[in-house]
């Protein structure tokens, strides 16, 4: 089967600085200042065309970082990412200008994505219809509710016809009816052979939407496989993790981070 996304040994390193002067020294001097923090460490996986892959993991496990790196928003520190086609990231109200109206935002966003004047004119009615904004479309976005913003953002992104779609918690604010509509749209994409990544804390949505799942833990892949294998394991872990006392949780975190740091990169 055709591979659409190949992620190889991707590492994303952030620097933690004690104070602003360390940051400045780090920029100016060749010597490294500050403590390294790995949001992603040596992550590799492959996705086939038409896969719907869910990212699960506790807070701070690197789900959002990974989705940003795949979308090309954040550059990786090491490793390579090969994407067959154009990725598009949908996050809540991502890339909307609050001062402008919904209609103006549609044109603005499409322009930035490289669409021509004619394309935008053709796309506009269906974007507005899908977003169900009615007369609010000519109001400034700052007056929108969070659900309206995410509907508009989702609507623009799906209409720009991306090859790889990354949905970061964007559906959690919409109501059930809109989520159903998005599911329909996603199934349509799936039949067209588009790859989708889905990030959510809702296990229910995950089971409903995804076929495969990646379980991230402290920037590393703990498990990758069929959703019916990964999710039960993850739920089992969550239950155990919940039962731990706060000291045990801290110890677990420290141990995992230590293991991650000590990992030898080949």
């Amino acid at each position, binding site marked *: 089967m055709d591979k659409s996304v190949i992620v190889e040994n991707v590492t994303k390193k*952030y620097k933690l600085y004690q104070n602003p002067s360390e940051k400045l020294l780090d920029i100016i001097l060749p010597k490294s200042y500050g403590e390294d923090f790995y949001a992603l460490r040596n992550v590799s996986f492959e996705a086939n065309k038409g896969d719907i892959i869910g990212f699960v993991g506790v807070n701070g496990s690197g789900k959002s970082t990974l989705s940003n790196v795949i*979308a090309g928003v954040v*550059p990786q520190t090491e490793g390579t990412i090969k994407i067959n086609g154009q990725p598009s990231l949908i996050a809540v109200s991502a890339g909307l200008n609050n001062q402008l109206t919904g209609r103006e935002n549609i044109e603005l966003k499409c322009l930035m*994505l490289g669409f021509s004047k004619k394309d935008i004119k053709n796309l506009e009615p269906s974007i507005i219809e899908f977003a169900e904004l009615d007369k609010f479309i000519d109001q*400034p976005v700052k007056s929108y509710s969070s659900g309206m913003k995410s509907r508009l953002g989702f609507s623009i992104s799906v209409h720009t016809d991306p090859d790889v779609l990354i949905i970061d918690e964007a559906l959690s604010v919409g109501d059930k009816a809109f989520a159903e509509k998005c599911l329909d749209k996603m199934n349509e994409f799936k039949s067209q052979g588009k790859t989708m990544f889905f990030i959510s804390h809702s296990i229910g949505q995950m089971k409903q939407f995804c076929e495969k799942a990646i379980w991230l833990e402290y920037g590393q892949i703990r498990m990758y496989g069929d959703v019916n294998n990964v999710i039960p394991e993850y739920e089992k872990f969550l239950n155990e993790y919940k039962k731990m006392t706060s000291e045990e949780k801290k110890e677990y975190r420290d141990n995992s981070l230590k293991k991650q740091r000590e990992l030898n990169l080949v």
Partner: protein
Amino acid sequence: MSAMMTVIKEQIANFYLIRRLSLYELKSSNNNNYLGMLWELLNPGIQITIFWFVFGYGIRGGSDVEGVPFFHWMVAGLIVWFFINPSISQGSKSIYSRIKMISKMSFPMSVIPTYVIFSKLYPHIALTIIITIIFQFSGFPISVYYLQVPYFMFASVILLLAISLITSTLSTIVRDVQQIIQALLRIMIYMLPILWVTFKLPESLQAVMKLNPVYYLVEGYRHALLGEGWYITESISYTLYFWLIVLVLFFIGSILHLKFRRHFIDFL
């Protein structure tokens, strides 16, 4: 050299994008005001009035500048400052204030300062037209020297682009740069022959002031609007110096921009 070509190619390939985005920029920065874009003209008008009152009426006692009324002399130079000042300060913060919104790598980031500068160009053109009309009916009619205005407008845009490429990159990496730029801009208006007459200063001091390429633009606008002569050819060595500076700034700006643009988001 190849860095410069990359940036220039991006500007040309995305010219439609620049035009549309600059209109939205203009719109979104004035949407909250009831008078809207009128403020882009009202603000300079208020400043011209107060500068004329303080420097022309108060300090100079209403005396002429070599036969030219102070009001006309000042406005002819001040008009380009009203374009340069906001363009540099907005252009410098253009990248770090928009990087979140433009969370797309395929978007050519070098056009961000460009469209911000373009959004300042429209009010500048409108102001130039209004000033031309005022001059027409107050003793300085349109002359053949007005042909220089488009040239100096073009020169201003290119200089601003070169400067903003540098400052927008630096201020994204180190945010303090923005404060330094604001301070420099506040000083710069007094270091130019806009509000006070500098040609009585010693030659050496004037020469130092002329190192600032904006000096060239101010004098150029003044020659064009007041019909004083062909500044481009009369000061040909200064013209060459100006374009050399622009080239050097553009060269440094392109290299800096391309070197850091992939990592802009990490500096937030």
